[in-house]
């Protein structure tokens, strides 16, 4: 069952439709409600390898629905600690719970100052409104 539109407080957002939940020098990353809704039901997550690095603004994987493929853009830089195996096995988890069970990767931040450039929910909603 698809989730309803929501951009929770407490998360940071990137204009390429990604979110980050910051926890000290670590962050959990995923795609926003808008991104999963625009793609439709996900059927594949081309996941990166744990131990590899991601760079802010650069694609670290792909999500695919029946009709579309989209790069997933890293909102922050760091080393990948964990990939959500549940999403690899059942990509529709992202549609059902984009900010919870549908997270994509967990990273250790290489430059925590990058967080300051991310958007709060209202600023991200403004990005959506302007697009």
């Amino acid at each position, binding site marked *: 069952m*698809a989730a309803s539109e929501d951009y929770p407080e407490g998360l940071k957002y990137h204009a*390429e*439709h990604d979110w980050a939940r910051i926890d000290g020098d670590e962050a959990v990353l995923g795609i926003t409600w*808008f*991104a999963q809704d*625009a*793609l*439709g*039901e996900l*059927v*594949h997550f*081309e996941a990166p390898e744990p131990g590899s690095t991601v760079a802010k603004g650069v694609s670290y994987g*792909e999500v*695919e*629905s*029946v*009709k*579309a*493929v*989209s*790069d997933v*853009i890293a909102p922050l830089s760091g080393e990948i600690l964990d990939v959500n195996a549940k999403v*690899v096995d059942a990509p529709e988890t992202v549609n059902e719970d984009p900010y919870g069970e549908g997270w994509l990767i967990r990273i250790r931040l290489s430059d925590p100052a990058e967080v300051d450039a991310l958007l709060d929910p209202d600023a991200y909603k403004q990005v959506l409104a302007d*697009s």
Partner: protein
Amino acid sequence: MPSWLAARRVQETRSDAPACRGVALRGVVTVQPVPETLLRTPLHSRHVAAGARLVPFAGWEMPVQYEGVIPEHRAVRSDCGVFDVSHMGELHVEGPRAHDLLQSLLSNDLDRIDDGEAQYTLLTNERGGIVDDLIAYRISAHHYLLVVNAGNREAAYDWIKEREVRGSEVRDASEEYALLAVQGPQALERLGLPEAKPFTHGMGELGGVEVMVNRTGYTGEPGCELMCTAEDAEALWDWVLERGAVPCGLGARDTLRLEVCFPLHGSDITPETDALSAGLGWVCALDKDFTGAEELRRIRATGPERKLVAFVLEEKAIPRQGMPISGGGEVTSGTHSPMLDRGIGMGYVPVAMADPGADLTIDVRGKERAATVVPKPIYKRQENA
């Protein structure tokens, strides 16, 4: 025959469509402005009201999905779905020499069908390439209805018009009609239609609307395609939904047809691909003369160099149109199969790699992915399961 199935002209309905959201393939989610010249079917406002996601397709603004491609796909495989396919073209070919004209232009043998029957066939060019694939409905010996692909409507019309002979006339009546494909194992029961042989047609009344009931489709499921006047489209659509059909978009139409290996013109078959390499020799009556028959007989004698095969992915990956296949092949259609829950596709490969069981390697955006050639269709309906 009702008057609406005969001659009448209406003006084109052009939309002043506002921009609508879409998803860019490969890359970030973007907003695509919809060109203002997109055509709309008579059911456009029904689609908008139902919350359908509308996308440009072959010059039309069409619903790609309502609830979602996968639930819509499953509804058609398990019960009943309805598609607005009013964008497809309808050409009337009439006159005492209509039959002769079409026999000389279409690959299949029209002598094999009688009044009230229909036939899948190809409009071929001199090279044996495919101008369009279509269904010819024989209304009488002097009147055929051709249902052609939306994107080929003008090409098919022009092709036939240029070759008209005295005593035959082709007329594009596409704007006069709506066409609803009602498909699925429960489709006929839900509509209260009696069982009838596939590829037959007849007139009837459904929900108070006069319809041409065609026992044809593009999903691999039983069902029918209902043609009515554009003015009656909404009433028929509403009635079909009341009978429990799930509204389905072009997204599910594509996954359904690919699971059963029905080719898509413009992707799997084109004016540059010949009918035999495409595996459509069964609709080419090479014992008669039609445009391209000579070239097709030559290809049959020497054997095609490549063939359109079906394949399934052996790894988690989704093939897409245009991806290279190692050894000189290319994916022409690819998707995720909702029934098999894996990547599936069709593509041309050299004949040496074309037998079921052959291993293929597909370049999925730079990663080599293993696939296996399988017999067509990829998905087979379980009888009485």
